[in-house]
Structures are given as structure tokens and as C-alpha cells.
């Protein structure tokens, strides 16, 4: 077990290392770092000074090592726009994105799991068919367009909910959080629902598929024959057996939620890292892009690692020795 975890850790580390190389090469070989780092108004003296300062006259491998060294120390360059270390700006914005992603995750489980259960337990009812048909829409609807529709209906025509910003926040442990105030919750509602739609459809379909696979199994029939109450059969026997894929997807999709929050944050002007990266790309704030990409990739690899370990703890059948 320890060997296995150590092995997975090494793998994860390798992936992050490869990503630093890709991001580094992308920024320094495909893009022109001199053009990126130096404002076009700088004169020749200033250019020389900055080229020497950032070590751009050094050979490429040495530059890469320097970049790695900085990255390990948490230094991914200074943002041109904010004039602060890029990582610091990102960490200031991160709580907003996490809050949005966690809310969306909760919504998708709270809606997707019960609906999937119903659709799986009573596949022939009209209600179940309606659920499944709607879930296809959840896949096909472009999420940014749904966001616009939400704004159109709930903010413009009905005027129930605000369409942008975070509203009133409360500071907890140095992080600003919206969900603790009524105003913040009202601001959170639309973006969280928008972000949750795709995931809800995924979890719903997964749950349904799991239920229809588990229901005909012998142990379910046995449990019923034993006189176990229907509630217990569904709550324990069925749910426990469909949880593994569902938990995996919830975890894996959490990373995707953070990535896709780029869209939702841009629509609802939610001040998180997704909006930050779009703004940074639009003004070509390269250190910010590098920092964002590195952070998100690291986050992804970590989430995958945690899922793998959880998976093993949740399901005794997944052995540490078997590779897949």
C-alpha cells in the first residue's frame, strides 16, 4: 500500500514536471519572451537590463532550471497588470472560484443522485423518461448560452436574482466568502446553477446506469427475500454499490468544474481565477497565464491522486497490486 502510494506520488510528480516543461517551452520558444516581458515603450538600455535581469541571454536549459527553481519556491513571475507576484493575485481570487465549484458540486449531487435513482428504479414511468430526455439537453446545451438564458429570465425579466458580482462577503480565516450572507447567496445562486448543469446530467446518468445494473443482482433479490425493508435495500445495498463510480466522477469533475468556471465566471462577472485568466489572456499578461496553468495542472494531478487513493479505501476489490 505504501509502495503503491509512493509510486503514484512519483507519477504525479512526473506529470507536473512534464507540464512545467511544456508550459515553459510554450512561453519561451513559441512565444517570444522578450516581447512578453518588456513593454513596447522600453528603450534599448531598458531592454538590455531586463534581458540580463531575467537571464534571457542564458542557454535554454539553464533558463528552464531557473524557472523550475522559482516555481519550487512559489515564484512564478510578477503580473504586468497587478504589479504583484502572479501567484499571490491568484490565491486572492481562488476562494471565490472554490466557493463556486463546491456549491456547483453540491447542487449536482443533490439533484443528480435522487433523480438518477428514481429514473433507475422506475425506468418505465413517464417521469423517468422525462428525466432522461432532459439530461440529454444538459449535455447538449452550451453552458455559456444557458448562463445567458438564466440571466435573461431571472435577472432581466423576473428581476429575482442579481446577474453579476459576489455581493456581500464575510471574511473567514482571511478568505472572503459569499455563502454566509443572504445577499451573497443570492449572487451565488445563478452562477452555481449554471456551473452545475453539466455535472448534474453526468451524475444523473451515471446513477441511473448503476442502479439498473445493480437491481437485477442476486444480492438484491436475496436482501428482499430476507425481508429487508425496501428503504434499506435502496439506501444500503443499492446506494453503496453505485457509489464508487459516482464518487470518482464527483472528484474528477471537481477539477473540471474549476476549469469550466472560466465560462461561468466570465458571464456572471464572478471575481475568481477563471475570470482572471480570461482577462489576463486578453491583455497578454503572460506571467499570470503561466502561474494559472501551473496551479491548475498541479490541482488536477492532486485531485486525481486523491481520487485514486480514496478509490482504494472505498473498494476493497481494487487491490494495490493490480495496476488497473
Amino acid at each position: 500500500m505504501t509502495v503503491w502510494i509512493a509510486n503514484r506520488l512519483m507519477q504525479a510528480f512526473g506529470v507536473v514536471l512534464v507540464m512545467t516543461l511544456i508550459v515553459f517551452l510554450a512561453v519561451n520558444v513559441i512565444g517570444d519572451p522578450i516581447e512578453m516581458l518588456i513593454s513596447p515603450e522600453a528603450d534599448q538600455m531598458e531592454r538590455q537590463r531586463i534581458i540580463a535581469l531575467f537571464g534571457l541571454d542564458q542557454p535554454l536549459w539553464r533558463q528552464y532550471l531557473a524557472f523550475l527553481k522559482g516555481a519550487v519556491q512559489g515564484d512564478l513571475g510578477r503580473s504586468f497588470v497587478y504589479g504583484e507576484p502572479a501567484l499571490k493575485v491568484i490565491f486572492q481570487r481562488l476562494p471565490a472560484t472554490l466557493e463556486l465549484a463546491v456549491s456547483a458540486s453540491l447542487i449536482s449531487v443533490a439533484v443528480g443522485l435522487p433523480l438518477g435513482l428514481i429514473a433507475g428504479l422506475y425506468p418505465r414511468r413517464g417521469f423517468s423518461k422525462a428525466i432522461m430526455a432532459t439530461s440529454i439537453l444538459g449535455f447538449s446545451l452550451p453552458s455559456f448560452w444557458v448562463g445567458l438564458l438564466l440571466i435573461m429570465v431571472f435577472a432581466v425579466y423576473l428581476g429575482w436574482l442579481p446577474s453579476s458580482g459576489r455581493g456581500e462577503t464575510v471574511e473567514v480565516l482571511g478568505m472572503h466568502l459569499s455563502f454566509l450572507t443572504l445577499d451573497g447567496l443570492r449572487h451565488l445562486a445563478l452562477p452555481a446553477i449554471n456551473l452545475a448543469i453539466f455535472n448534474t446530467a453526468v451524475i444523473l446518468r451515471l446513477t441511473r446506469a448503476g442502479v439498473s445494473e445493480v437491481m437485477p443482482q442476486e444480492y438484491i433479490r436475496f436482501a428482499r427475500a430476507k425481508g429487508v425493508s425496501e428503504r434499506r435495500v435502496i439506501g444500503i445495498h443499492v446506494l453503496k454499490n453505485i457509489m464508487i463510480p459516482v464518487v470518482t466522477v464527483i472528484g474528477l469533475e471537481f477539477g473540471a468544474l474549476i476549469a469550466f468556471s472560466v465560462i461561468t465566471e466570465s458571464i456572471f462577472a464572478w471575481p475568481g481565477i477563471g475570470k482572471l485568466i480570461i482577462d489576463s489572456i486578453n491583455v497578454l499578461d503572460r506571467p499570470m497565464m503561466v502561474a494559472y496553468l501551473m496551479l491548475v495542472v498541479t490541482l488536477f494531478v492532486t485531485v486525481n491522486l486523491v481520487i485514486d487513493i480514496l478509490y482504494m479505501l472505498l473498494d476493497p476489490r481494487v487491490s494495490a497490486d493490480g495496476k488497473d
Partner: protein
Amino acid sequence: MSPTPQAPTAAPEPARERPTRPLVEVALAYCHSWLAVLALVVLVAVVLVAILAPWISPQNPYDLTVIDIMEGRLPPGSEAYGGGVYILGTDDQGRDMLSAIFYGLRISLMVGLGAALIAATVGTSLGLIAAYAGGRVEAAIMRLVDLQLSIPSILVALMILAVLGKGIVNVMIALILVEWALYARTARGSALVERNKEYVEAAQCLVLPQYRIMFRHILPNCLPPIIVITTIQVARAIALEATLSFLGLGVPVTEPSLGLLISNGYQHMLSGNFWISFYPGIALLITVASINIVGDQLRDVLNPRHHR
């Protein structure tokens, strides 16, 4: 599909004659679902509209002599000054939305189809090479596939556009790099199965060149799953392109796709002019949904395990 040498299937009744016209067979099986047939009809209509846009549009939305800024933001059904009706209203420049959508559809389909087909070629080739070569080549290609598939598509696309900048070609490059991995994985999976079959052995005994065995013998037998994912990948590419254009990272303003049309209307939505964003969105939804439904049905029809 061409009548390629079919792998001997384990048919329960050995005495029955094998169907001689697989295409007809597939077409008949496809028609079992009325929804899928409807989706196919809609899809053909959408493609026709995109191809014929210059001839069936009420106006050329990018000919500045035709559009009149005084007729900007007219609601759907308004009468035009010069006669005719703006069925879906006009945008802030006075452009007929219906025409803009027809032209936008052209760009969206072109970018999506182009990217998915190039990705199919690149990915399938790499997958075949991985399966056939084995060893280090295979390990290297498949690690790359794993890495790519573990990162969400939007992130990969953002990364590429952040480095390369905006523009139609760059968007296509981004879409290709997002999509090739799934093809490579699928192609390798089926090629690994095919490689051990007798006909490949026979071809190897004839000392045919490797590339010939790969592309003339193995590839045709790997095609069904690749065709299925191509349909779904086209839909994904169209949706992703629309998203990127909406975020302002996609196609340039001079060649607006559906995503960019939606993005342009976004500013007017808060003032109640919903149609500028709404109808391009509907067009996008119809396109993506019909492709997805067709792809789903194709998967059921082409997958031998799915015969119920």
C-alpha cells in the same frame, strides 16, 4: 462502409447466410428510432443551410451597403424599410439576424468539421502506429494520450490560444490538439484486437509492407468506432469553438461564428433585446443536439454488442 473482409462473428446459427449488403443493413437498423431519423433530417437541413447560405439568406450580412444602422435592434418580425421582414430581428448594426445565423453556421460547421477530421486523421494514425509498433513508441504515444485526456478540453484550448493568440487557424489547432487523443486511444484499442486476427497474419506472410498492412488491412476494420466518435467529436468541436469565441478567444470579428454572434448579443441582453443572443444559441443547440443524437444511434447500430 465498404464491404471489407469481415471478421468471422460467432453467430449462434451457423447455417444462416451472412448479409451481403452491410450498408443497407446499417441504414435499416438506424431507422428503428424515429428520433434518430428526425435528428438526421434536421442535421442534413442544417448542413444544406450552411452550404447554401449565400444564396438563401435574405441579405448578405457583411455587405455594408445593404445593412442600415438605423434599423438596428429591431425585434423579430419587424418590417424592413426597403421591404421584406426581419424574421428574427436585427442586431445593433441593423444586420438581419437570420442571415447572420446562416453565415455563422457556415463558419461554425467549417471549423468544427475541419478540426474533427484533421484530429481524426492525426489521432487514428498515431493510434495505429502505437498498436502496430508497440514497445517504446507505444508507451510514449499512450502516455501523451493519458496526459491530454486527464486535462479538461477547455483548459488545453485556453493554454494553446494563450500562447498562439486568436484567429481561425489557431482555434482549429487548439481543437485538433484537444481531440486527437480520443481517436488515438480508440484506434489503438481496436487495432490491438485486429492485429492478432488471421487476415493480418496472412498479410504478414505475404511480406506486404508494414504501412500497407496498417492502413489497407487493419484500418478499414477499425473504422466503425472511429466513425462514431467522429460524429460526437464534431459536436464537441463546434460547442468548444462557440465557447472560445464567446470568451473572445476564438474566431475574429470579421468572420463571426455562432458563438461570436451570441457574445455580441450578450451586451444587449441586459437591456431586454434578447433575440440577438437567443436565436444564434438555438441554432447552435439544434446543430449540436442533432449531431449528438445521430452519433448515439450510429454507436448503437455499429456496435455488434448492442444488438438487442
